[in-house]
């Protein structure tokens, strides 16, 4: 399960790989916000931008699409729900089909937006080292004195460490219980309890061990500060993205 997520860093040397991560995050947020209320004209522009980004980032896109197949299932589900539950436009007589047409349009629009946002996220994560993302988060949190940025950054890397451990553990527990016939028990509460308690006990022990191992490696919140350097190309990119966002909001009105 854990191996299937397409969202992970893929090393490379393209322009997108070398941009300053702070600028990438800002651009990513801006584009996400503008695609969030976009209509077909703006969405077409964004789709072109995505194709361009994929082209220059040299990512193995075929394999990524394959790994995203679960997401496509989610998209289809959202589409069906939307298509079925949108209010009919009152002008048309054929009630049944009117519901369908308006719904299909709405559903397609929402799926298109979601797809674009997810693809941008994918490109961002694929071209950015996780440790750089953490460094940037620390940097963005600096103005908030009451939030311990270093601890937040450490927690983020621990989360990404724990998720595959938990999923592997869950698979092992589920298999062990299935081989002892748990599927004959129909009571869902019973099965939930029997899955979660051993899973959590095991993962808590792992967390304990991890804390000790971190201590043995001198963990403290006073640690090497990573330098973030911005270049001209970063500012140009950010400027480009801002122009693009403004353009997109104009197209739609």
């Amino acid at each position: 399960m854990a191996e299937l997520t397409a969202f992970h860093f893929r090393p490379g040397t393209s322009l997108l790989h070398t941009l300053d991560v702070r600028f990438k995050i800002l651009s990513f947020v801006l584009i996400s916000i503008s695609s969030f209320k976009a209509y077909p004209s703006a969405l077409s522009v964004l789709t072109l931008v995505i194709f361009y980004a994929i082209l220059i980032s040299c990512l193995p896109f075929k394999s990524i699409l394959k790994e995203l197949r679960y997401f496509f299932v989610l998209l289809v589900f959202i589409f069906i729900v939307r298509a079925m539950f949108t209010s009919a436009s009152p002008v048309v007589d054929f009630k049944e089909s009117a519901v369908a047409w308006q719904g299909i349009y709405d559903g397609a629009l929402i799926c298109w937006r979601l797809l674009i946002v997810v693809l941008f996220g994918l490109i961002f994560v694929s071209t950015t080292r996780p440790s750089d993302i953490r460094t940037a988060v620390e940097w963005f949190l600096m103005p908030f004195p009451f939030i311990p940025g270093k601890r937040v950054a450490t927690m983020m890397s621990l989360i990404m460490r724990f998720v595959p451990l938990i999923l592997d553990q869950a698979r092992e527990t589920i298999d062990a219980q299935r081989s002892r016939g748990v599927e004959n028990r129909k009571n869902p509460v019973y099965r939930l309890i029997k899955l979660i308690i051993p899973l959590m006990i095991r993962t808590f022990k792992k967390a304990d061990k991890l804390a000790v191992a971190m201590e043995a490696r001198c963990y403290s919140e006073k640690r090497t500060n990573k330098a973030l350097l911005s270049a001209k190309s970063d500012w140009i990119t950010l400027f480009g993205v801002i122009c693009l966002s403004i353009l997109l909001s104009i197209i739609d009105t």
Partner: protein
Amino acid sequence: MNTNHSIQLRKTAYASLFAALTAAGAYLSIPIGPVPIVLQNLFIFLAGLLLGSRMGLASVGVYLLAGACGFPVFAGGTGGIGRLLGPTGGYLFGYLPAVYIIGLITEKTGRHAAFDVIAMCCGSVVIYACGLSWLKLLTGMTLAKTLIVGMYPFILGDALKIAAAIPIAKALRPIMRIKD
């Protein structure tokens, strides 16, 4: 191991672990009838019950922040600010006040099972309030339809999860206690 520093470190590890469980909960499901029960909000309940209000809040806050930064912690193995702003983003934001309220109630009432149930019901109400109002705002559906899409199919599952959370919390509290 008895220093403040290592207690702090262990708390950090536990809070991260719950955030990771919440993320993993989006992939874990138990098939019951036609709709599989996704375990994500069960871990939100447990974070409130076991970590308490402050650490629970930190755990969920970092979970959302990690998701906003693009780490794949949301359902379907995706991440990104787009998911937080998308139609289901309200539920995710709702986790934040929900975990705090659950933690607060269980702390104030001495971790009694009956109050834990109340705490989790309050938490669910908060999650739905956030989730449904955002869903309604974004999609412009009528309230009745929003409820049909965004709440009714999940209520049974939530009741089961609350029922399961009580014995789970009871079994785990002694293990989780941060030893001096």
